[in-house]
């Protein structure tokens, strides 16, 4: 996110410079001569600003797509790590699995924040957001699948009956050899 902001700030300064140079070739340190009113032609001005805004929106969309696709890399890496970790329960595999679960979850929580800088009337953020969500959900699914392969999910009948006490018996019987 920080990276995105920095890019945007720099972009704006550069845009202003460019327009200044196109309209006022002289240095801005010198005052305008008396009687000279700096009035730029109206249509020209509006055209530039529209152009400017379009560029910005394009750029924002591009960046948003980049952000949306970023979990994919993560996903691949996670998959590799999981494969490395194996299917037995120990410290390493549990750590990997829980980080695989935690990362998508935290990303999903902050989905609004991630895409906030790209918020714009003209930018359609729905698709990147959906992709971002889908990829993160994919990561989460991978984590859950891993959890299951580790046998930590109660998906078997045995997980639900292993603590059931034996049933009560209706009848009661006693006896044996007679005392002698």
């Amino acid at each position, binding site marked *: 996110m920080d990276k995105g902001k920095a890019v945007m700030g720099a972009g704006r300064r550069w845009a202003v410079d460019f327009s200044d140079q196109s309209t006022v070739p002289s240095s801005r340190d010198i005052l305008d001569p008396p009687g000279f009113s700096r009035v730029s032609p109206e249509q020209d001005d509006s055209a530039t600003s529209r152009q400017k805004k379009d560029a910005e929106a394009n750029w924002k969309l591009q960046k948003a797509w980049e952000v949306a696709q970023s979990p994919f890399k993560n996903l691949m890496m996670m998959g590799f790590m999981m494969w490395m970790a194996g299917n037995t329960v120990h410290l390493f595999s549990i750590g990997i699995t829980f980080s695989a679960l935690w990362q998508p979850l935290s990303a999903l929580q902050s989905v609004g924040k991630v895409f906030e800088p790209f918020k714009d009337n003209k930018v359609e953020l729905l698709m990147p957001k959906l992709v971002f969500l889908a990829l993160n959900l994919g990561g989460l699914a991978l984590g859950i699948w891993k959890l299951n392969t580790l046998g930590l999910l109660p998906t*078997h009948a045995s997980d639900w*009956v292993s603590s059931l006490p034996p*049933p009560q018996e209706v009848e009661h019987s*006693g006896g044996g050899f007679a*005392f002698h």
Partner: protein
Amino acid sequence: MAMALRLYLLLIVFVSSAIVSFSLYEDQVGLMDWHQRYIGKVKHAVFHTQKTGRKRVIVSTEENVVASLDLRHGEIFWRHVLGTKDAIDGVDIALGKCKESCLDVPNTVFAFTLMYHRSMLRAWNLPDGQMVWETSLHSAQHSKSLLSVPVNLKFDKDYSILVFGGGYLHAVSPIDGELLWKKDFTAEGFEVQRVLQPLESSIVYVLGFLHSSEAIVYQIDSKSGEVVAEKSKAFPGRFSGEISAVSNDKVVVLDSTRSILVTISFVDGEISFQKTLISSLVEDSGEAEILSPLLSNMLAVKVNKRTIFVRVGDQGKLEMVDSLSDETAMSDSLPVADDQVAFASVHHEGSKIHLTVKLVDDLDTVLLRESIQMDQHRGRVDRVFINNYIKTDRSNGFRALIVMEDHSLLLLQQGAIVWSREEGLASVTDVTTAELPVEKDGVSVAKVEHTLVDWLKGHILKLKGSLLLASPEDVVAIQEMRMKSSGRSKLTRDHNGFRKLFIALTRAGKLFALHTGDGRIVWSTLLNSPACARPSGISLYQWQVPHHHAMDENPSVLVVGRCGSDSSSPGVLSFVDVYTGKEISSSDIGHSVVQVMPLPLFTDSTEQRLHLIADTDGHVHLYPKTPEALGIFQREFQNVYWYNVEGDDGIIRGHGMKSSCAGETADEYCFTTRELWTVVFPSESEKIISTLTRKPNEVVHTQAKVSTDQDVLYKYVSRNLLFVATVSPKGAGEIGSVTPEESALVVYLIDTVTGRILHRLSHQGCQGPVHAVFSENWVVYHYFNLRAHKYEVTVVEIYDQSRAENKNVWKLVLGKHNLTAPISSYSRPEMFTKSQSYFFPQSVKTIAVTSTAKGITSKQLLIGTIGDQILALDKRFVDPRRTLNPSQAEKEEGIIPLTDSLPIIPQSYITHSLKVEGLRGIVTAPAKLESTTHVFAYGVDLFYTRLAPSKTYDSLTDDFSYALLLITIVALVAAIYITWALSEKKELSEKWR
């Protein structure tokens, strides 16, 4: 920070070295376990006090033990526990110097024992108890055996020990046990009664009765065994078996009417009878009984609960010289100085006993009269053995060894009890556990034994030990400290449930409460009954175990006893308070006791447990007799069943409750039963040798058994299962008495409600005895395989097929299953079993299984081996899922590759180096801590230990060093501070640079 890390790592290494491993270390012996050695009720005692040095007494007991006891302290010098069938018939000692021919031991003194069952004569070396020789005598038949050792035996060829046993008279050389000669007396109808060997005579008299009506005296030359003369004389009437030898040529016999005493004298081989009516000696006549003490020229006769002394005159004339009240015990006569013979008698008066030593010839001369305060809970005096010693003033002193009714053994000397041994504990018949009182505020029994300094000192010592810095003296001090750990023997409940009472019922009808911490007797009580003097105890049940009112109500146990030895004799119920040992009440219930069925699920509002007692008429009686209990019982009336096993006929009968027996008696707590089913085993091919059920109080944690591939098997856990083992009648005898083709062992699992045979398994060519253990859904049993000539152990696990359908996870998540619904035996559950057999290298006396509070901890089998040790074997070794090559997943689950025999790992003997001599039973009881179980083994010896089958996963071990932990933390904090200060300083100097 790196430094702190290093320090921390170092400390971690130290801490981990303090963690103990599973098997026991030498210094842990005695921390959790205790062992007590006993000998049993004394039958014969022979004193050995002639020599200076250690005075001792040789005893033989009803538990078949020969032992040498220290007369000063009552400790056991040496002890030999013989087999259960090897009853000892006689013990005698012979003093004498060994000549060159006999072994290397100089100055040997022998103790001879004669065993009834196998007719063996054994000689033991007196100082150290080593067996010197053993002679097996001919034993064609079992008959009473007699041992006769000449008084002045010398270790010479001329002298011989005469032994009558198995119908033969044997003369055995005392030097090496060689059989010198033997004489056959196995003639039809002939019964040898006495073997007499007059002093300084080479003639041995053998007196016997032919068909109980003719007396025959054989005179035998003691050197050669030739019959010198034989005389017989018919008796008009019949003899009873009771006989008393009063002198070397006279015996007194009781005739079969028990009203006439007959003096038989055989001076010079001439037999003469002289009859005396008992009514002529004493006014109130009745059935008489000759008492066993051997008195010279006198005999003791018990008539109408009185003991009378009858002197035998020279001509065989009888006259009464004294009479005593019934409660009198007498010793044999003992020669004291100057041809005088004395005997001791002990009688009770209130809480005191009076010991009197008199001369036999002159009953008015009292050599000793002492009164000793005696504990009421020892009962009456049963046997007396006396011994004399010369005091410093040259007069005779006497010491008396007395055996009380509760089997305890006491030595009396100079009016005081010198020592006592609780020998009743050698014959424990039933054991149950009980809780100790809850520690109440302000009345704490424990004292604050440790000041802070002591505590610190102790911990520093421990620390030294764990850091391997302790000197040998320190090690001793540490060991002593651990042994005496204050918490062990407190008389209050503890958090972990390690302190408990084991209540033991002995054959003598005495209850003992033993503390698990140190094995001491907390209380003991002898059962009483209003109906009969001394009821015999049968069994022991937990009667009231308060949980809701644990602070103000005491738990109690129920002791079921019986007046008399017959099964139809009336029963006695005693209720004993566990905390105090006081008998709360004792009632004569007026009906016989055949079986007792605790109904563990039903308790009344005061938490008394309901019990049903079946009598010989097929009625059952409900206890406690309260309307509330009756109400509870009537609600469950239709669901209560009982069964009885008739071992002789090979029939098991099941009964259901029918109605109240109001028609026959007015007793509303009595119910009639009706027979519902019978299982008849064909008598020509099967004989019941063993039956077994689960322990009624066993806790099972789960009904499911999860296999490696997450599959579920449902255990068939039922209290109403009976394991029955039968063998072919031919194979019921000793191992090896039949060929493999003739013998087969069949085991059954029978539902005792419906009588349905759930499982039957036949082992061809196998033989009993069968020792089995039944827990949860499995049975493990031990038997002999005649084909393989090896013992085998088989495990059978029972699973419920009808519940196996419950596999849908969603139904289970939503609770839509019938797994917790009450089940009925009438629903005909389908079941299947898994079983596997293994060889087992040892013969077994008993098998038990560990039990824990919640049943989560894995189980261990406790196998009492023939060597009187207890082996702990993980249940994992007897698991039918074992295969030759378990998969990786199975290995991870802990399945052991299948082997043909079960391993015996020497470290897993929980008795370590000790032996529980004469082991008869093992009892386990859960502690409060789930991982831990109490184990109590009884036989002639007692042994207790605490076991953690899966190690103590829920607590720190006893020797965990808290000081070390504390020091580690302190050191770490200090290290953090120091390194922090150092780094600050360094940073500062960097900044200044």
